[in-house]
């Protein structure tokens, strides 16, 4: 590997340390990422907007601050990119839609303010499925592609965040997860994706999909980087009383405490279920065995309701999305991607009684998850039923209700139980298929106990070789 490639794949934590120690300059680091973006993003389409000039100016300011001996933030001079669902002052926020092609933000979202305060350089805004809904057929800003195999889906909705983290097109990224939108691309792309507890990270300035489940979080190359980014973006938002007012817990100082004594429940329905691909199941069970060898008490747990979670989630999130999009559906329907429009139209016609039943079913599913988290510190599942599918397979027409059910509900049942329960969950790489595609392991914890989730993820990451693999050079 060339030094520039090694530099680009270095963790954000280590890059910040190298900048602090003057082993590398912010400008040189930024140029390494810009060079990779120039060479690779014409194929991968991770970015919608690259802030080249502004980022170079910011890097120069970072270098001047270092020269003046100023106190540096924990991300000083580190290039970070964010999902194009999050407002950055002066830049457009498209949410991956033609409808918002000219939507220029007038202020920074709180998470952007916090990244800037930590010294981060905003490198650009990342591609996503339209309005973070998933299933986009024709991406208006380029078809995002999986860096491990460009014929395969990078996952969504934070597609560009997963690609940019995995392919080292940024030091680290932010995504947003309503039903799996951070964990799915992390799993498909072989990255680390943390969905924080709902209420921990300010949601203001992020175009909503479902207000009771939307959560901004990091997608990174290492667990330590996820902890670093979370420590920067988490915390009360005085302007949003729906967010938690208590100070966030310390997620960094206990990262290396190990898993000895932790109780981990392997969710039977999602691990051994008929929809789980055998290679994925075997990799996840091997990961559970690794955690057991590291000292965790691993046992199986049954959560019978989780297989309903995908449909319940879609009833809630799609109905809310349909409500928000009614005016545009009526006046600008053809400006949506075909799949988004059809999904919103179907959700618009869902009977209110079924929606109401789904709100109650959400409580039952959440109760089941939370009860299991009384017995266990963590729940363990595959992040997805299988590895990344071919892009073409997701673009074929829906041919029957059975086809629709299989494509839209089953997969979401792996991630959405923890969205419905408002608990944190992380996806970390736990192996590769024979064809070379990453497999994701999901660990979910108690509300606001990101520290334990990250601690177990870090212990597993350090005990396995997966983080050392890099996608093939393009």
């Amino acid at each position: 590997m060339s030094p520039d490639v090694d530099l680009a794949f270095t963790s954000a934590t280590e890059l910040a340390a190298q900048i602090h120690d003057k082993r590398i300059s912010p400008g040189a680091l930024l140029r390494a990422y810009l060079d990779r973006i120039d060479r690779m993003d014409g194929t991968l389409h991770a970015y919608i907007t690259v802030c080249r000039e502004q980022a170079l100016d910011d890097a120069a300011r970072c270098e001047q601050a270092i020269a003046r001996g100023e106190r540096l933030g924990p991300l000083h001079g580190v290039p970070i990119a964010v999902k194009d669902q999050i407002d950055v002052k002066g830049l457009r926020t498209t949410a991956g839609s033609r409808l918002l092609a000219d939507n220029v933000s007038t202020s920074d979202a709180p998470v952007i303010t916090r990244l800037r305060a930590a010294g981060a350089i905003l490198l650009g805004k990342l591609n996503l499925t339209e309005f973070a809904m998933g299933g986009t057929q024709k991406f208006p800003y380029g078809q995002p592609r999986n860096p491990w195999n460009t014929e395969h889906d990078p996952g969504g909705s934070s597609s560009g965040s997963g690609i940019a983290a995995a392919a080292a097109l940024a030091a680290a990224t932010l995504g947003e997860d309503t039903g799996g939108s951070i964990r799915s691309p992390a799993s498909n792309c072989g990255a680390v994706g943390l969905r924080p507890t709902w209420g921990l990270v300010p949601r203001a300035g992020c175009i909503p999909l479902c207000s009771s489940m939307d959560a901004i979080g990091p997608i990174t190359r290492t667990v330590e980087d996820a902890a670093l980014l979370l420590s920067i973006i988490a915390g009360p938002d005085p302007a949003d009383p729906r967010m938690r007012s208590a100070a966030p817990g310390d997620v960094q100082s206990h990262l290396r405490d190990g898993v000895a004594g932790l109780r981990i429940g392997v969710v039977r329905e999602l691990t051994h279920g008929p929809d789980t691909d055998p290679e994925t199941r075997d990799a996840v069970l091997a990961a559970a065995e690794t955690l057991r060898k590291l000292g965790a008490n691993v046992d199986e747990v049954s959560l019978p309701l989780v297989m309903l979670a995908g449909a319940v989630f879609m009833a809630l999130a799609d109905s809310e999305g349909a409500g928000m999009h009614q005016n545009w559906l009526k006046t600008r329907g053809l400006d949506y991607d075909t799949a988004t429009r059809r999904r919103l139209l179907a959700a618009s016609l869902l009977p209110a009684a079924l929606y109401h039943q789904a709100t109650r079913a959400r409580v039952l599913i959440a109760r089941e998850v939370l009860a299991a988290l009384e017995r266990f510190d963590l729940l363990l599942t595959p992040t997805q039923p299988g590895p990344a599918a071919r892009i073409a397979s997701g673009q074929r027409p829906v041919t029957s209700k059975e086809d629709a059910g299989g494509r839209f509900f089953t997969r979401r049942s792996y991630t959405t139980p923890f969205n419905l329960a408002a608990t944190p969950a992380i996806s970390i790489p736990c192996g590769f298929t024979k064809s070379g595609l990453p497999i994701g392991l999901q660990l979910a914890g108690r509300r606001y106990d990101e520290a334990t989730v990250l601690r177990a993820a870090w212990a597993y990451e350090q005990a396995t070789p997966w983080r050392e693999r890099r996608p093939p050079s393009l």
Partner: protein
Amino acid sequence: MAGDNLNVWYDPEGDHLEIVFERKTGHFEDTSLENVMRKRDAEGNLLAISIFHLSSFAGTRSDPESTSGHDLCMTTDLSVTEVRALALALGLTPTDDDLPEVTHRLNAMRDALAPLSALPLDTAEPAPPTP
């Protein structure tokens, strides 16, 4: 299912309701609901639903406040025509190309949510998570 040919027939003397979606050779089969049978063709397409003793069927609802029980599990596929009519009633104008997929998606959603009525939903008060 051909929604264009929908026929609803009620025999008050026999207290028998029949909803015919398509007149075609098929076979009747039991459902999980007492007094209710459905008719399918060889490909499994739903052709008709028959409800016997309709008035007593309504009386089997033990608790009108309840949202539990198999009595709410029944779903009948909507046709493209019906979905178009529903959409138009709401001021939405799906294209002809949209309608088959919208119909599949909506029917899939209704099917997927049908099992919810068998859950103890009465015990769960819907409330958003508290931060």
